[in-house]
């Protein structure tokens, strides 16, 4: 049993606050929730929407149709009314015509204390339509408006009550999932990335704001005191990339957050980190391109760019978490790998994942520092770039007993620049041995539920929709499974073997099936089909199942 609730309206009307409120309230009541956001690149006006899907079982993605639509503007009503499910109900703040509820939400809000509380009216309406008791909603309102003072709390509560009253006649019109025990905690993808970084021990975060990466940056700024992190806004992304290189050199775990265009500007700095063997971490939150593209939408178009970004050849490790839990884990792992292999690591997310919220088992918030692999007492003849079998050289920090010398030019073991071409080859081989090492330790994909004739190949945030599609298809008797790669580079060496003899259908948020191409580049597959989407919206499970052809 599940339901999908959509609040839609203009930017600036409080769609997001209402959505957040509902999400927390449902979670508080003991429902499973999965919320997603869809918004325009503007501050006021337009059509934004916030979906909260609720269920008595764990959820993995959003849905295209909604069972309840609460529209705050005629424009958003018109945009969304076609997506209301059969048996669903729509309400508009205004005249909705015969097939939907016309409710004067703004009027009610004004009565309660002000038009800006219209979101709370909508939330109350939603609760009534679902047949739920507004207690949980009020509790969340207390929490949310506490800082704004008792008046705000009272006003919003009154608004919710007025909303509930308006919809009372339709109470329980929707078949609803039954709440059980409150389970886990709510996190957005942004928060999970930020918390992963914070607990891993990040000390320097330097970024230039860019949607949809700003959420993680904001989260990190909000916990900077608790974890003692310097969060510094850079003048541009080039500064960010080079600043974290400096910080990493001097010993601080360091990270930047960005999106495609900003990442493009960091490509030179990425190559620098490869050359200086610095453990930097980049969160690359994708949106559709090229150029500015659709800045507030989702996509998975930057994979091949990220894998090959930076001039010259150097090792790089790229994770692409599929779930909010993985966003936390893979960010931690990125710090681990970056330090272990002394090379840059990237965490690829996207607007869908960073903005999505879900209840998952509580993520540990205590510091659990990754090993920086620091040589604390370097010997008298210490050299930073010792040529070793593994390719990894003992890493000391400047400020200690040994000088730590590094050069972006090719260098000898002591880090000084050289034009000795034999030394060059040895040094390049040393660096690339780390790539081999990282490949040997690459993560295998998750097969869900188990390897099958046909494999829906996916990476990153497509996990949830793909998993739901597999459930749908299997229920119809199709021999289909999902193979989700949470590490996309280096590609797990066993990929070829594991996929051999199976039909591969790549499900990706781009127009060229980049991950399938990458697997083919690695020699892991030769043929593949694909289900692609690149209009800026995330996949849904139902859509994938519908588009799947045996």
């Amino acid at each position, binding site marked *: 049993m599940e339901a999908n609730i959509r609040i839609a309206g203009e930017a600036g009307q409080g769609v997001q606050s209402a959505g957040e409120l509902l999400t927390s309230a449902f979670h508080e009541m003991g429902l499973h929730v999965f919320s997603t956001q869809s918004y325009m690149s503007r501050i006021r006006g337009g059509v934004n929407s916030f979906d909260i899907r609720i269920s008595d079982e764990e959820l993995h993605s959003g849905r295209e149709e909604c069972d309840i639509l609460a529209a705050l503007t005629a424009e958003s009503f018109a945009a969304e009314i076609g997506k209301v499910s059969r048996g669903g109900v729509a309400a508009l703040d205004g005249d909705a015509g015969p097939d939907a509820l016309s409710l004067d939400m703004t009027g009610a809000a004004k009565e309660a204390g002000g038009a800006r509380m219209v979101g709370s009216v909508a939330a109350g309406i939603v609760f009534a339509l679902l047949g739920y008791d507004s207690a949980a909603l009020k509790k969340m309102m207390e929490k949310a408006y506490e800082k704004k003072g008792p008046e705000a709390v009272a006003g919003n509560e009154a608004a919710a009550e007025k909303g509930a009253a308006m919809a009372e006649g339709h109470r329980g019109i929707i078949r609803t999932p039954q709440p059980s025990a409150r389970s886990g905690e709510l996190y957005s993808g942004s928060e999970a990335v930020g918390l992963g970084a914070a607990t891993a021990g990040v000390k320097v975060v330097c970024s230039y704001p860019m949607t949809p990466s700003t959420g993680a940056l904001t989260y990190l700024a909000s916990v900077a005191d608790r974890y003692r992190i310097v969060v510094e806004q850079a003048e541009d992304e080039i500064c960010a990339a080079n600043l974290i290189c400096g910080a*990493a050199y001097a010993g601080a775990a360091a990270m930047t957050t960005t999106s495609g265009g900003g990442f493009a500007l960091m490509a030179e700095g990425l190559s620098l980190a490869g050359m200086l063997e610095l453990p930097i971490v980049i969160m690359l939150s994708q949106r559709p391109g090229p150029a500015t593209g659709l800045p507030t939408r989702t996509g998975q178009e930057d994979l091949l760019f990220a894998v090959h970004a930076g001039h010259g050849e150097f090792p790089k490790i790229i994770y692409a978490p599929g779930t909010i839990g993985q966003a936390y884990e893979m960010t931690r792992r990125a710090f681990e790998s970056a330090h272990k292999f002394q090379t840059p690591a990237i965490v690829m997310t996207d607007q869908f994942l960073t903005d999505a919220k879900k209840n998952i088992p509580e993520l540990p918030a205590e510091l659990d520092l990754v090993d920086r692999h620091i040589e604390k007492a370097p010997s008298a003849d210490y050299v930073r770039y010792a040529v070793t079998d593994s390719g990894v050289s003992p890493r000391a920090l*400047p400020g200690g007993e040994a000088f730590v010398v590094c050069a972006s030019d090719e260098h000898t073991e002591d880090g000084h620049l050289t034009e000795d071409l034999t030394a060059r080859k040895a040094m390049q081989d040393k660096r690339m041995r780390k790539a081999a090492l990282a490949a040997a330790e690459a993560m295998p994909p998750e097969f869900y539920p188990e390897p099958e004739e046909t494999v829906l190949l996916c990476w990153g945030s497509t996990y949830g929709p793909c998993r739901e599609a597999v459930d749908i298809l299997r229920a119809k008797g199709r021999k289909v499974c999902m193979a989700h790669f949470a590490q996309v580079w280096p590609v797990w060496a066993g990929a070829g073997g594991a996929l051999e003899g199976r039909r591969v259908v790549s499900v990706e948020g781009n127009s060229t099936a980049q991950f399938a191409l990458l697997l083919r580049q690695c020699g892991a597959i030769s043929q593949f089909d694909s289900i692609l989407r690149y209009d800026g919206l995330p996949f849904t499970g139902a859509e994938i199942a519908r588009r799947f052809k045996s």
Partner: protein
Amino acid sequence: MSGTAKLKETAWCPGCGNFNILKSLDAAIEKTGVDRKRLVMVSGIGQAAKCPHYTDANVFNGLHGRALPAATGIKIANRELTVIVASGDGDMYGEGGNHLLNAMRRNIGVKAFVHNNQVYGLTKGQASPTSEPGFVTKIQTKGVVLEPLNPLALGVAENCSFVARSTSVMPEHLTAMMAEAIKADGFALLDILQPCVSFNKINTAKWYKERCKELPPDYDPTDRQAAFAAALKWGDEIPVGIIYRGARRSFEDMTTALAGEPLSSLGG
């Protein structure tokens, strides 16, 4: 030789102003008692940018134009380090222009020593941001038409906490200026006029010697209007000395997360 000792041989041309700058740098380090183990020399790419390799210090020789962000990161990660950027005019005023502006704004405790030879040395003689109008090169075949960048005026305009000029042809003065920059709190810009014997046949050692004059003893570097006037002087007489001191608190002191032990000491 320990693996991390400095390079004994430089890749500079005989007669280059860089040699004097390197000597003054060593003298200033001695003079100020900077602990070399806690000294990081940072640079970008260029002839001047090779300088760190010839010093006994930690070295971060990064990308062209990006010395200041890297230096900023180093200082943030470990504020107990002395962080000196020694790089070229192309590096810091050209490719790195935006970072210079923002290092001033940020007032991070990094000392920028700009080997300003008014030309791109390493890439063989193109105009730099400080090349004089009319300067002819293989790219600027009709001579430079852009107005030269005035880094000192920029510093005064942006209320930079320390703005000074010296020259490799006045080595003692240069040492003194470097020492002042090192001792100053926050970001320091020291523009160092330097002959390039290979590619700048206009602004030679002789040219600089004839023109560079110390600021008068009663010059007040906290007077912003006067500083602006001094910063604009160029031609027959070029003032050297501390041009301006902006009243500022350093980034380190204004950033709460930087109170206490260095960030680099925290972690697994």
